């Protein structure tokens, strides 16, 4: 026993622990890479082989609270769908609107008396799920409806989109189909362009991968088509307990053994937030909803089942990688910093391995994602190149081509790093990722100030859009720990998508 060199053993144990922390940063990168590697397999593993011509009678439910600016245009677009008009019933559930929404709906119902119906809730404000259930109760009263389309008041369906969704319902195993929600604002700003790219990566890219894996994480709230049988099987109601009713519906459908299909070629345009504050509220609602989903379905994670694929390891890793991404960012930085302060030889190796892997993954993901919707990606090319954040790109550059940052650029200014200078620079690089979340949070704080219109976008370009989303997820942790009341914040829609 006395021969054991305890300081060396403890030092080694600490080093391994710190290395394990660094490795946590690789998990989300690995998870995203695996998902994107799966996308090309959608050429083989897709649902088109089981799709067939099928045009069921579709009831469309639109929850509407003070949507006077957008609801008329949305109804007109629905009436212009390339779909038999006699097979369309549009139920607009007016959630006690106080603007001109009821008048607009009544006017449209007068023009299309066989297709448009106004359902009024006198007591509103309980949230989207309650509003939807009001409409669902009505459409289930008779046998007319064969399929139910749930949509948002502001979205605009491409003429062929519904037809491209219903064809999958020809397969009786399919319970629901989701479409590609594409950012469609006409007066775009930096934030809507980032959101547009995020939607490319998360929908026609990542959800194709989910088709391949056989498990969908979430039906788009603005475009989900259910069979009548599926709606009845999940209880004929939308969950009202959480802020993630779309995800609950998606999970319940699949847990019942029915398939959820994502149709990437059914495109629906949507208006997305133009301000960080609006985006923050929207995503905080989603993030907090996902916390309750994670808790509610705690018995399915990583427990493979013959009935559904939600319990598969791949789906579990993807789900938790997104949910715990801020944790991974922080633990990874703690590991790197710890190794640096231990003066461990492996610190630099671990950093380079992690960041070179991250750089390769980012380039692959963005290069493939950009091709999936090249039209939108080209339009948003500035945000495509700065998606990870300008400073994170410099960090990747430092990992990939260390000489550029350490030698070439300083030499242009006649600067040579001292050992302490290099140490400070290295430490700054290691803590950058969690610190980028602080920058994103700061961007929200400065946004409403006089310098906000200029400074907030600069901060987001520097920190990265991903860091903004991570900061919001981190905020959801804080809100959950503090048990702050989860409030439904309606995302303000002004009809920008239709201009």
């Amino acid at each position: 026993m006395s021969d054991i060199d305890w300081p060396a053993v403890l030092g080694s144990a600490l080093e391994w622990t710190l290395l394990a922390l660094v490795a946590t940063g690789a998990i989300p990168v690995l998870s995203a890479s695996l998902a994107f590697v799966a996308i090309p397999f959608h050429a083989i593993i897709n649902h088109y082989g089981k799709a067939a011509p099928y045009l069921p009678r579709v009831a469309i439910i639109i929850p509407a609270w003070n949507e006077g600016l957008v609801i008329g245009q949305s109804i007109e677009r629905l009436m212009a769908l390339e779909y038999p008009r006699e097979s369309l019933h549009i139920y607009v559930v007016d959630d006690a609107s106080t603007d001109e929404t009821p008048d607009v709906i009544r006017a449209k119902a007068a023009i299309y008396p066989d297709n448009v119906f106004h359902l009024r809730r006198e007591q509103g404000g309980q949230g989207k799920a309650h509003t939807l259930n009001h409409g669902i109760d009505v459409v289930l009263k008779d046998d007319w409806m064969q399929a139910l389309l749930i949509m948002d008041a502001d979205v605009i369906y491409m003429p062929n989109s519904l037809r491209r969704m219903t064809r999958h319902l020809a397969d009786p195993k399919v319970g629901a189909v989701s479409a590609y929600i594409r950012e469609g604002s006409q007066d775009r700003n930096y934030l809507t362009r980032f959101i547009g790219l995020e939607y490319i990566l998360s929908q026609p890219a990542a959800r194709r991968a989910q088709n391949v894996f056989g498990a969908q994480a979430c039906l788009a709230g603005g475009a989900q088509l259910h069979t009548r049988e599926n709606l009845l099987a999940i209880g004929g109601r939308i969950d009202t307990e959480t802020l993630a009713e779309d995800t609950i519906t998606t999970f319940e459908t699949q847990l019942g053994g029915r398939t959820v299909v994502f149709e990437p070629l059914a495109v629906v345009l949507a208006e997305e937030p133009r301000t960080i504050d609006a985006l923050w509220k929207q995503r905080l609602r989603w993030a907090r909803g996902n916390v309750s989903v994670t808790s509610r379905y705690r018995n399915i994670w990583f427990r493979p089942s013959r009935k559904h694929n939600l319990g598969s390891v791949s789906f579990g890793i993807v789900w938790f990688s997104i949910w715990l991404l801020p944790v991974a960012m922080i633990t990874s930085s703690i590991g790197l910093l710890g190794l640096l302060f231990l003066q461990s030889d492996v610190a630099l190796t671990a950093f380079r391995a992690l960041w070179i892997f991250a750089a390769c993954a980012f380039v692959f993901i963005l290069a493939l994602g950009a091709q999936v919707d090249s039209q939108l990606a080209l339009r948003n090319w500035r945000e495509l190149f700065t998606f990870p954040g300008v400073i994170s790109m410099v960090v990747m550059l430092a990992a990939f081509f260390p000489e550029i940052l350490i030698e070439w650029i300083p030499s242009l200014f006649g600067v040579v790093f001292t050992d302490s200078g290099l140490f400070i620079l290295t430490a700054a690089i290691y803590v950058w990722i969690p610190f980028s979340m602080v920058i994103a949070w700061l961007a929200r704080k400065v946004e409403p100030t006089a310098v906000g219109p200029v400074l907030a976008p600069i901060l987001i370009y520097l920190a990265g859009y991903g860091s903004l989303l991570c900061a919001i997820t981190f905020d959801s942790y804080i809100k959950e720990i503090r048990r702050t009341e989860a409030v439904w914040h309606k995302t303000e829609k002004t009809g920008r998508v239709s201009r």
Partner: protein
Amino acid sequence: MKNKAMDRLADAAPSRHSGALPPIRDIRNPGDAFIQAEIDSNRRFEWLLPIKGLLAVAVVLVLVVIRKVFFE
């Protein structure tokens, strides 16, 4: 009001890239032949994904080669 972006999207990629579809007589009810042809066309369109994946890998490889050649 016309939405140009939407109109561009309306006849977006798939059918253009994967062969002609039968003519539509009734836009609201294009018929089983058209819908089946559209499904087949969309299915063929997905075969571009492996090519796109290879292109993305090629971009990564370029970076790796630059690192190997110039920075090691």
